[in-house]
């Protein structure tokens, strides 16, 4: 089993979600996060004082899937989240030791 984590631009969330649904993904977990990468932050000005805001708002997606599914999911995210401009984000895949569905107690691939 794999955990796919993606950091994307917030306004791309809806498009990515729709693409994942079309690709047969059954569930995703979404968190609003902040961070910095190569994309520069922005400057805010309060009564003439400039503040350099390094952290850019992003959205983090987490998806679990069965081994073998991960490439399709990753490709779907990459295609739908891409604008071609700096700051599009990253996707990474992690191995999972186990998954349990709380309601039924199902384990591993059955719980995906």
């Amino acid at each position: 089993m794999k955990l796919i984590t993606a950091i994307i631009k917030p306004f791309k969330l809806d498009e990515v979600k729709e693409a994942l649904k079309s690709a047969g993904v059954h569930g995703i977990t979404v968190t609003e996060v902040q961070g910095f990468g190569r994309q520069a932050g922005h400057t805010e000005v309060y009564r003439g004082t400039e503040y350099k805001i390094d952290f850019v708002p992003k959205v983090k997606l987490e998806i679990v899937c069965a081994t073998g599914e991960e490439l399709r999911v990753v490709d779907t995210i990459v295609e739908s989240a891409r604008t071609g401009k700096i700051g599009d984000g990253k996707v990474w895949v992690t191995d999972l030791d186990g998954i349990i569905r709380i309601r039924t107690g199902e384990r591993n691939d059955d719980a995906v």
Partner: protein
Amino acid sequence: MIDTGSTAWVLGSAALVLFMTPGLAFFYGGMVRAKNVLGMLMQNYFAMGLIGVLWAIVGFSLAFGGSGKWIGNFDFAFLKDLQHAATVLPGYKDPYALAIPALLFCAYQMMFAIITPALITGATADRLKFASYAVFLGVWSIVVYSPVAHWVFSPNGWLFKRGALDFAGGTVVHINAGVAALAVVLLIGRRRGYPDEPMPPHNLPLTLLGTGILWFGWFGFNAGSALGANQLAVQAFINTSLAASAAMLGWLVVERLKDGHATTLGGASGAVAGLVAITPCAGFVSAMSAIVIGALAGGICLLAIGIKRRFGFDDALDVIAVHLVGGITGSILLGLFADKSINPLGADGVFNGGGGELLGNQFVAVGATIVFSFVLSFAIAKVIDLTMGLRIDEAEENEGLDISQHAETAYA
């Protein structure tokens, strides 16, 4: 004769009307996405800055100076002569003589001039460039607002003389701004992602707070338009509140039957729709008529939102459905419900034995305001679009108005 009680009431009313603009800002601000809330608040608050100064320089004079029927003149530019107690405004002679100083009338009307173009910002939410908005706001106030205010409010104006009634601004404020909103959204285009992406309100408690401020301020708007502390002001006061109450109920009932739930946004929108519809009627109809007008407006405005998606444009916060449709509803219903026993300076509508004359005049006033405001608003916005551009670019829209236009964030 200047009356101290009336002066006190209209002073208070002017402050109440000013307070409606922050109320509107929060009403709208809660409905936009979090990245655009400061942009929305700023557009509304900025009207309190720019229009205030323009009104003193030239706006008031173009609306209420001179004896022409189409537009005022420059006699009161820079508030000339208004600061003397003896000044009488042209046309305001018996039976329209003012019981308050001319300077107070100017201050009171200033607050109307401020909120009217601010109403438009709900339609163009999330995508209007601030600099272009600033230019539109100033030009529109002088070229569109002042003439229409003259036609309808000044006893020398052609619609006033014709016998069209508008107690506090159904045509001048609500239809005028609603039509301008339509003209600008046709030019500026839809929000990026509309209508496929959901764009739910980011903070409904702010919207409900704004609704309360609007309702509170509207007492100054309508009851203050009696321009005196008298029976008429009291009538307008109770009519205003009853219409808002009935419209809230009307909206919620239709919403519950149509969509399954009575919502907080529906209750708030219904109240505002009722306040809009009673605005032209407040000092001309009985309290029971106000309840009927409000209830009808609540249902009609909700149904107007229901058919919005059949049109291609994106009126983000339903300015057209609430202010244009609500303003038309109130202005036309006045032709049915007007009652001379409530206000001898008014007229009798169809239901009170007055025949169709007033109703005809109401249609003329509504039609004239729609045509004039649409043509000029479209022309002003088109020139701005060709020179400065009305709309922010794609990256700015994705980032949001707050950071891209104002270099600030609302919620750190």
